[in-house]
């Protein structure tokens, strides 16, 4: 029995040492890059690795904030969260990525004029349960120095910076599967820190289909659709033009529409439309994209859909 106790203590000591080594080997990555932590200014790296040493506000579900409770902020699957300071920034400066023991981190930095913002601007986060993404809306922002990137990791997949309908911008961060998250605000410079860890549940919906210049947000692949069908997404298609065509299994056009997105040159532009169509049998195809400016060939996404009645 005593020998068993010694073995337990030795195992615990080994585990603690292993965690320490893993933390020492943490790496920061820019979107689509592998960047050693040593290239990050020391003070900045320390701030992001140890948010409890910052003037940090950790947001709890429901928008509550608690001064100095960053270290206690726990992971959550809350569908809504918000925070930030009015007028603190006017643009997105950078979106970075870091990999930590048991979780991964996306960091959003902001511009205020040409300089880094010292605080985090007003934000709200929406993360529908089991959909594999978080949308962080910034109603006060108007520009973005970085518009998309690939994390390509085991939890975080990629992100898009999109001009929101109405005003502001939003950032969609896609994960490889279901996740829990926590949000921390850091100051000087202002940073919104989003930590993700995998959740042991399956996604309720497929992640939106994405191509080089079109992301189809709704409907999702394989969805049973009803008329009128809301189609939405974002794109960087030439002259902001987005065509959508619904075809039956024989290729006959059931509905089509061309709409403009609200951007394409500065960042991803949001679009939405409503398609009305008759009942059909079997598997139809919804194509959303545009004709290539080069030769007119279709560039975009195509997903199978079925008829959901109604």
């Amino acid at each position, binding site marked *: 029995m005593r020998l068993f106790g010694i073995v337990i203590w030795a195992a615990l000591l080994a585990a603690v040492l292993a965690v320490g080594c893993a933390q020492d080997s943490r790496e920061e990555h820019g979107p689509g890059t592998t960047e050693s932590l040593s290239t990050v200014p020391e003070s900045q790296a320390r701030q992001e690795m140890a948010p409890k040493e910052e003037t940090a506000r950790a947001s709890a579900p429901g928008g509550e904030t608690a001064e100095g409770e960053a270290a206690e902020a726990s992971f959550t699957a809350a569908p809504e969260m918000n925070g930030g300071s009015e007028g603190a920034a006017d643009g997105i400066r950078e979106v970075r990525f870091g990999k930590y023991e048991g979780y991964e981190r996306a960091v959003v930095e902001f511009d205020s004029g040409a300089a880094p913002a010292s605080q985090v601007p007003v934000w709200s986060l929406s993360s529908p349960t089991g959909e594999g993404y978080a949308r962080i809306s910034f109603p006060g922002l108007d520009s973005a120095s970085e518009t998309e990137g690939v994390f390509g990791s085991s939890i975080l997949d990629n992100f898009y910076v999109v001009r929101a309908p109405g005003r502001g911008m939003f950032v969609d961060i896609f994960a490889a599967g279901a996740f829990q998250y926590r949000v921390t605000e850091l100051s000087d410079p202002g940073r919104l820190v989003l930590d993700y860890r995998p959740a042991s549940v399956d996604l309720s919906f497929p992640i939106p289909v994405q191509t080089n210049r079109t992301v189809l947000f709704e409907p999702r692949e394989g969805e049973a659709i009803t008329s009128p069908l809301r189609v939405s997404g974002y794109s960087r298609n030439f002259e902001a033009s987005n065509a959508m065509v619904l075809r039956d299994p024989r290729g006959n056009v059931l509905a089509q529409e061309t709409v403009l997105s609200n951007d394409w040159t500065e960042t991803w532009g949001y679009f939405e439309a409503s398609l009305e169509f008759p009942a059909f049998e079997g598997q139809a195809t919804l194509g959303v994209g545009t004709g290539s400016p080069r030769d*007119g060939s279709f560039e975009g996404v195509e997903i199978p859909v079925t008829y959901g009645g109604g």
Partner: protein
Amino acid sequence: MAGTYYAYYPANSNNYTGANRPNSHLVDKIIIHVAQGSWSSAINWFQNSYAGASAHYTIRSSDGFIGQSVLERNIAWHAGNWYYNQTSIGIEHEGFVDNPAWFTDTMYDYSSWLTAWLCYKYGIPIDRYHIIGHYEVPDPYDRTSYGGAGNHTDPGLNWDWYKYMSWVAYYAGV
């Protein structure tokens, strides 16, 4: 016009096709576009290797400044129709189709001067059969549709074709 000014901001080579026009392809039309965006953002995007699009020229709304992205001898990707791309020069204009405030007289002025010069240079007749809007480009995949394959509508109803063609004719001395 007070005096032409212009700068070259080369598009990324992924966004156009190299050629040797007019020896390799007849250039017989000008296609007028509206960018649905700002002058600088359009120029910048054409320099991005992922854009998959370009125009030869983009005209700034405020002062008519002419930015060139693709040399005329090369084939810019703007029409959504390969034949029309091969045989045309594409001119983008800063602004949005649903907001006529972007279509300033200064922009019409510099754009019409440029078009008149291109018509002279390539022997393009000054008429609406050869100076066309993007919305008049046939859809190569649907004989009943126009605006290229994307069925674009630019430059839109707010574009003043009468003014534009009159000023092109003026600069051409017609």
